């Protein structure tokens, strides 16, 4: 249950007096739908983050005082257009399967001479991660309208997609939850939140084509790493390390399952 519904649940627990709860919940739900509509009318606030991300991409920074413009996101040095739609993938220079965020860390280190550690360790609301969220918004925006093209062929990609599928079904923690507990059935909900059935092409696409996304309920720009991190929190797991293999494996599993669907990033979500 994400922060918002936790808040609602806590509020309801306090107010739990039979009939009034239904109305309280309804008001709350309508309120958030109104905020959502309002945000849509003004355009997706993610645009602001895209602009910030573009600046971060093009402005020289770090010990080497270099920009990220020569970063190879898989389509050659400096090609951003369409790059997000073919990630995660294997990169020869690192000999690793990388998602967008782990690849950005590589470029920050090699091109700009930055230490990736503070970026990995910062909380999602701290400045280093704000940079990553903005860069994700910008780069994913340049794949909007393009088909996802993630078809594992390299042996490391084939292994990673299987590791991701295995991670998806891996149960643990005090609630025995796995990703599949919440996303392994067609047409279910947690409270009022609809849950995509991720093992299907349609369900995987629902998630993969719309994140990174601006979240109206919290007023934040969430990268895909943040989305996955918060689902692990709800799963009662220990915290996944930022850009770790488990998060990349899950991403590859989702992207490969969704391959062919059209990118709508950056999305806008409740």
């Amino acid at each position: 249950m994400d922060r918002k519904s936790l808040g609602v649940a806590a509020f309801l627990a306090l107010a739990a007096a039979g009939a009034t709860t239904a109305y309280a919940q309804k008001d709350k739900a309508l309120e958030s739908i109104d905020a959502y509509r309002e945000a849509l009318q003004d355009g997706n606030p993610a645009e602001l983050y895209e602009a910030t991300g573009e600046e971060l991409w093009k402005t020289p920074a770090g010990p080497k005082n270099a920009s990220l413009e020569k970063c190879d996101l898989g389509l050659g040095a400096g090609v951003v257009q369409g790059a997000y739609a073919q990630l995660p993938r294997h990169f020869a220079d690192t000999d690793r399967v990388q998602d967008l965020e782990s690849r950005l860390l590589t470029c920050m280190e090699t091109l700009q001479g930055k230490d990736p550690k503070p970026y990995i360790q910062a909380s999602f609301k701290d400045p280093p991660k704000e940079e990553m969220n903005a860069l994700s918004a910008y780069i994913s925006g340049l794949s909007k309208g393009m088909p996802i093209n993630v078809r594992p062929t390299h042996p490391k990609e084939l292994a990673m997609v299987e590791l991701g599928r295995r991670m998806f079904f891996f149960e643990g923690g005090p609630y025995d939850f796995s990703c599949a507990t919440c996303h392994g059935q067609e047409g279910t909900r947690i409270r009022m939140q609809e849950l995509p059935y991720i093992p299907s092409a349609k369900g995987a696409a629902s998630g993969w084509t719309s994140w990174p996304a601006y979240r109206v309920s919290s007023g934040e720009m969430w990268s895909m790493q943040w989305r996955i991190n918060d689902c692990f929190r709800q799963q009662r797991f220990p915290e996944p390390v930022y850009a770790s293999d488990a998060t990349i494996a899950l991403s590859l599993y989702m992207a490969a399952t969704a391959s062919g669907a059209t990118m709508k990033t950056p999305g806008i979500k409740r």
Partner: protein
Amino acid sequence: MKHLVVLAALLLSGPALAQSAGKPAWGPGADDAAFAAMLKTSFKDKGIAKLDRLTQDETQAFCSDPGAASGPAAAAQREKIEAANMATVKWPSDGKWLGDWKEGEKLAQSGRGLTWTDKADQPNGANCYNCHQITPQEISHGTIGPSLLGYGKVRGTSEDALKATWAKIWNAKASNACSLMPRSGHMGILGEAQIRHLMALLLDPQSPVNK
């Protein structure tokens, strides 16, 4: 050290899973050793959510390969796992089955507890509305589990009905090896008094569930 335990748990559970499936469940590069190595580098302790949560018990390991666990070849193993879970159920110490349904409703509403943003000294919620319709008044309910509307009206309060419901809440895997429902008593999420209140929510004729 903890990582070694994770690895050991995976390695122990692996062969049994592969056997029941008849073939390896996961493609090349995702065998037990590779998977354990990935877990080891990918997670860290945060707040009360420590790495030991990745160490699976037998039930969790079995249910993490749903294809194998649900097949006919695994029927005997499912029964074994259900029996082992049934053996963990602690029956009410004072013979009282039903508490206060109003307290049960509060618990069922609360989804809080045991995430890395929760504190160890906060009481846990029961999470029931996240997955179940329960009272007709609460329209914001999940659908991962079946509707429990009218549960007590249908079941009554015979000894059998009381026992089955208590066991379901204490350890949901006692009657369904790979149930999606948490094992609230067994995992220490809820205590005996709280389960009594939830029993009343479902079974007390005065509860809105049965009106």
